[in-house]
């Protein structure tokens, strides 16, 4: 009867030995390049980190793993083929999906489900690209969910190639639990299939520190510091750039990095702008250069002068470098400019004759799209958009009277960018499902 103690031990400990860990966050996709992808997820118990992946959903032939055991799993998939759909599953061991694996589109949260993503095309290639833009989304409330659902209905089966978070992603303090509810439980499907790129907002900054790149925000996001996704090495996740097809995205840290004209961020920005060969330059950061919404860019004290800094110090460099589109949040409204250039002062110094490069609404079905020459010329105009209402609009009346804007709305919503070759289409959808603004920029 020597087997009896063994049987007893197995009976007692088997539940612990075989208890499955649960994925409590993700998986989510980070730092996408044409040949690599970072897959992250969190489990409730420590275990190994393995991603099984392949181009055939029924045969995930490749495996990539990270060293050690952890609850915070970060796995780099490298050697991928550009513009290719991959299927993947995450866990502690390599997983071979059954022959009856679910068809694509049946992704569901849970352990060992099979998800998919598509790698970006080679930098510079022309590919129809859809970008979802969410400013200040993280309220965790019905408005945030409505804004999300409106976009899901709008995009339908068309994949989101990437999405941008413009900061204040998780209210009120950008803590891990704030992020869990405001981001990971709000957008699980998009997180699994589309890489997300973020900039730091002031509420994220309550639980994070840019000079030391520490805290919740920096723990959650894996962002490129070495120019590995395109652009110049920044040496920090606080500000960085990346390419997607023929678009160059520039993320600045308007909240917690040095904004001096001779500071490291500015020197990086100038070098990055000079380096890029992409057709389009889209810059995004949290604090708007112009706003008369829930913040006022005319007030020096508002946001400790950060809006002034971004307008007076960084905007001239962006315009010198040929930026096409500037996306910001912070002010919980939607404000969209004409095609503009050179306005670095307060709103009372705005002069339409000097600062508006092209009047009109920029709508192909209205006054016509904004048109720019296909060249990297400085100061030929950009459109500035404050889209900081993906979580809520202002509950109080706001002025919305900055003269640089063609349209100002106190409405919750999110923005969509579609780029196809030398044409960029922009849409703002409110939380009721209405298309409240649109414009196009065409390069020729």
């Amino acid at each position, binding site marked *: 009867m020597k087997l009896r103690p063994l049987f007893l031990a197995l009976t007692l400990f088997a539940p612990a030995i075989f208890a499955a860990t649960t994925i409590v966050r993700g998986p989510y996709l980070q730092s996408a390049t044409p040949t690599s992808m970072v897959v992250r997820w969190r489990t409730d118990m420590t275990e190994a980190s393995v991603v099984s992946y392949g181009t055939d959903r029924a045969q995930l032939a490749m495996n990539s793993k990270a060293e050690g055991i952890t609850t915070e799993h970060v796995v780099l998939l490298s050697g991928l083929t550009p513009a290719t759909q991959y299927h993947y599953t995450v866990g502690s061991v390599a997983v071979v999906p059954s022959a009856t694996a679910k068809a694509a589109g049946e992704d569901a949260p849970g352990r060992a489900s099979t998800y998919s993503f598509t790698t970006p095309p080679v930098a510079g290639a022309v590919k129809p690209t859809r970008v979802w833009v969410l400013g200040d989304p993280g309220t965790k409330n019905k408005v945030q969910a409505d804004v999300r659902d409106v976009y899901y209905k709008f995009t339908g089966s068309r994949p989101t190639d990437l999405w941008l978070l413009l900061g204040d992603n998780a209210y*009120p303090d950008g803590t891990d639990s704030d992020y869990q509810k405001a981001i990971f439980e709000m957008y699980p499907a998009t997180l699994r299939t589309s890489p997300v790129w973020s900039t730091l907002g002031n509420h994220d900054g309550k639980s994070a520190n840019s*000079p*030391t790149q520490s805290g919740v925000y920096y723990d959650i996001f894996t962002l490129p510091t070495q120019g590995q996704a395109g652009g110049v*090495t*920044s040496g920090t996740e606080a500000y960085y750039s990346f390419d997607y097809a023929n678009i160059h995205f520039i993320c600045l840290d308007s909240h917690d990095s040095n904004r001096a004209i001779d500071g*490291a961020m500015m020197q990086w920005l100038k070098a990055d702008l*000079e380096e890029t060969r992409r057709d389009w330059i889209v810059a995004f950061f949290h604090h708007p250069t112009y706003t008369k919404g829930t913040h006022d860019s005319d007030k020096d004290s508002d*946001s400790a002068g950060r809006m002034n800094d971004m307008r007076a110090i960084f905007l001239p460099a962006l315009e010198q470098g040929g930026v096409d589109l500037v996306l910001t949040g912070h002010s919980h409204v939607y404000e969209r400019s004409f095609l503009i250039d050179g306005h670095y002062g307060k709103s009372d110094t705005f002069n339409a004759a000097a600062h508006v490069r092209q009047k009109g609404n920029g709508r192909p079905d209205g006054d016509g799209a904004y048109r720019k020459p296909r*060249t990297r*010329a400085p100061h030929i105009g950009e459109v500035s958009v404050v889209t900081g209402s993906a979580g809520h609009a202002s509950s109080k009346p706001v002025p919305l009277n900055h003269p640089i804007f063609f349209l100002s709305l106190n409405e919750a919503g999110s923005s969509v960018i579609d780029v196809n070759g030398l044409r960029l289409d922009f849409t703002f959808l409110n939380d009721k499902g209405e298309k409240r603004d649109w414009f196009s920029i065409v390069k020729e």
Partner: protein
Amino acid sequence: MPGDCLEQFTAYRFPLMRALALLLLLAAAAMVRAHPEVEAALSRVNALIAALPEEPQFYLDRGDIYAQHQAWVPAEANYLRAAELSRGASSLRLDRARAAVEVATGRPADARAKLDRVLKNNPRDAEALLLRARALAALNANEPALADINLALTLVATPTPELYLERAALIAAPADAIRSLDEGIARVGPAPALQLRALALEESSGRIEAALLRLDRITGASERKESWLKRRGDLLARVGLKREAREAYVAALAAIAALPSWLRESPDLAHLATELNRLNAPSP
């Protein structure tokens, strides 16, 4: 500032303090009107203060909210109240917070005293070390500042280029400063700010070979090489190596020619090409 703070501020015993508190109150009120999000954050902590008005922690929290928005005056007022309620048992967090305000408002000596206290208790507090380095640098005590920032850099897992720039600024000897910057490059990557500072130091201290090598590395890693090649030519020309300078200018022109036409024809590049052709022309 919401009214429930008034009671706390007017609890000061001396008329002068009351007047000061009132001024602070007005300044803070103006700020709150401008920032609805500050109002929301303050309302949460104000409720806590209303419930437990003798709890120093909440004043510290409220000071932090103001400090995050660089509203130094109300921030310091709250920190002072927290210190008063702590009855001398000042916490390390409070000392560090007050020191941060003092560094930001140009009182490095006051900050240093508090940071000495913090670091005596926790010598590996990286944030306090960086603050004390800044305070010491403002007091022209570069050597101890350097020691603090060196230690902080060993404690911060992912330092930014800015920290290495700060450190290099404390080093007088160009060779040592360049070495310090190269350490930064090795750790955080070839960030432009570090490369450009190192290049400037190499050029200004006559380390031409080193500068050329650095330029070669930068050029090799760049998608757009023309500006770096021009810089190489300019450096060679300055030290009298005219033939080599012309070679660099020719290479820059070739780099421009290899670009797609829409980029090549941009005004900046057209101007650069004109300049390169002028520099490359044979001397009369």
